[in-house]
């Protein structure tokens, strides 16, 4: 039983090292990034150093590709979230009933998550979507249709397909696990009341999964905001700026020319964007968390 006074102080002292370490871990890089974003600091140009005020920020958001990059980031995140959560829920419900080979099928379904992003991107680019060598081109040719140049004509769609394929296993895993905790008595009660499968899905399954869905959405958003590897290996920002997201824009304007100032300014802008997105997401999903189970 802890009271104020000596035991309370001891508790704080013992927790202090961990708290201090974590704070430094977070604050020092953040402070340095903010500092560099206001400096003119190009590794290859040692003569041009000094305080740059808002020049780096102006260079970034004055870039004609900045707003398209912002829009692409949001479109990318929104599409992948919609596909993975939607399809993940349906697959979780599907896998709930026992069928022959369910364990093997689950293993195959989860496998894409463990493939390295660059490897998945290259496999999709060169073996599946390629208009000369790809599997889809072969299928189209057999049907007598002209093959589609996926990355040239539908770059954003191709990217969304690759990312959904990579992240679907993650969403499925969390939703499937959450589904297992659905009360068996509730199921029976619903059956007795004469609920048909659609009603059961929308009124019982989905509300039950809301908490798990919010976890999936939060984690996927954090990772999808900084997607880079897939874009770099497939489209290099897309024809024009069709698949340039904020992370890729920072790379192409700052990191490629080793300009620490511009890259830091881009990093801070990305932090601001992430916080705005998180704020809205938490508000939308908070309803499901409060007064939950």
């Amino acid at each position, binding site marked *: 039983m802890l009271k104020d006074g000596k035991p309370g102080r001891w508790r704080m002292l013992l927790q202090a090292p961990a708290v201090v370490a974590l704070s430094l871990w977070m604050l020092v890089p953040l402070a340095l990034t903010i500092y560099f974003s206001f400096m003119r600091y190009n590794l290859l140009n040692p003569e041009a150093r000094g305080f740059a005020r808002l*020049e780096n920020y102006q260079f970034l958001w004055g870039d004609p590709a900045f707003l398209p990059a912002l829009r692409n980031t949001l479109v990318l995140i929104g599409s992948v979230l919609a596909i993975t959560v939607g399809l993940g829920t349906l697959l979780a419900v599907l896998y709930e009933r026992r069928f022959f080979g369910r364990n093997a099928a689950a293993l195959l379904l989860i496998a894409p998550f463990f493939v390295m992003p660059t490897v998945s991107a290259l496999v999709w680019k*060169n073996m599946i979507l390629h208009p000369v060598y790809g599997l889809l081109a072969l299928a189209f040719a057999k049907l007598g249709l002209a093959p589609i140049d996926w990355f*040239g004509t539908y770059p954003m769609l191709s990217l969304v397909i690759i990312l959904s394929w990579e992240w679907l296993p993650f969403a499925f895993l969390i939703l499937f696990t959450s589904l297992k905790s659905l009360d068996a008595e509730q199921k029976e009660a619903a059956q007795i009341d004469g609920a048909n499968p659609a009603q059961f899905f929308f009124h019982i399954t989905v509300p039950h999964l809301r908490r798990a869905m919010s976890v999936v959405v939060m984690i996927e958003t954090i990772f999808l905001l900084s997607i880079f590897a897939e874009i770099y290996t497939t489209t290099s920002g897309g024809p024009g700026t069709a698949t340039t997201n904020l992370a890729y824009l920072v790379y192409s304007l700052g990191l490629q020319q080793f300009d620490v100032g511009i890259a830091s300014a881009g990093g801070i802008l990305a932090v601001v964007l992430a916080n705005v997105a998180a704020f809205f997401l938490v508000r939308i999903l908070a309803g499901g968390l409060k007064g939950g189970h």
Partner: protein
Amino acid sequence: MRSTLSLAAVTLAAGCLLASPAGAAEPAGITIAAVNNPAMIELKKLSTKFEAGNPNIKLNWVVVEENVLRQRVTTDISTGSGQFDLVFLGQYEAPIFAKNGWLREMNGIPASYDLEDVFQSLRDGLSYEGKLYALPFYGESSMLMYRKDLFAAKGLTMPDQPTCEDVRKFAAALTDKSAGIYGITLRGKPGWGENMAYLSTLVNTFGGCWFDLQWKPQIDSAEWRNAISWYVDLMRNYGPPGATANGFNENLTLFASGKAAMWIDSTYGAGPLYDRKESQVADKVAFASAPVAVTSSGSHWLWSWSFAIPKAAKSPEAAEKFALWATSKEYVRMVAADTGWATVPPGSRKSTYDNAEYLQAAPFASVTLKAMQTADPLKPSMKPVPYQGIQFVGIPAFQSFGTVVGQSIAGALAGQMTVDQALKAGQAAATRAMQQAGYLK
């Protein structure tokens, strides 16, 4: 028992004290940063002979892919961290690093090394204010590779120096999409070292340049429009689909699997095309000089992966010794004895091209030699320009806006915007970058 134990303890302590004199007996370790292409991997293999002959030098290799290498070397050298003793770099980095005082000058080269044997054009590109800062390991330029069997079947002959109009006519005659043969394949993947490497030479040969003497970008000029329109029309009509994803490796695969009749790219691509295990066209490929339009200035590029020693290197003498060994005539003979004359480091020494055995083993040698000798990085365009570099502009900011321009042109190639829109976007990007970097007010 006790005395034996204490005697053993004393002996052990004495042994430890005697066994560690600093310096003299320990070998100097040098860390080398290299690219993971076949010539370097062969060098790593043969470097054990160097270690055998120099027991006081130990080599530590860091072999990575080109983009990773560039990033790590640039970060190491610009921050002076001294992680590497010997790095690979090319004509782009050497003058910039030398100007900032980050590289050790390559002096103290013995007469037996025969520095004059190394191509002058390469040495010019690796020097700053007349002093040499890197030693070329192998050099490359660009040329036209074509299928002599397809040309013969249609009764066409490729001249030694084709024009861009010739290339367009040949591509039109040779394209047979139903049979899966495309008249020509060119780089389309966006990047300053990818599509822009080729397109810079195309713009040069159409009489254009990147910047005028006041550093004003020239991307919306008539020469750029002519060059890029030629490229986009050619590729959209006679090129393979998905061209915006094709860089050097993808085009090599396309040509080696017999799907393209012509390919303009690095002279280094000729070697793999002769490897029967990797290429289906080994006995059907022939070579010509890169096509010209208005001028031959800057019509083919110049690059050499070269050894340089950072100022902060910990063992610079050992590093220079290895660099001289690896770029010597003796090393070329060593590779010939190991894997054959066709695989020796190309394009760096004139003596390689005087060797009859090499000329016989490598049919691409004469075109490569001509290209290496006529490429001039100090005069890349027929117009006077303030920069050096044929397929790049030798300033740090180029890595960024060069790629952005490449992205816009890839957009035009994919049909997402017109050539004029792409050039306007490129001009805006370059202007902003030059203002940011302080070249323009």
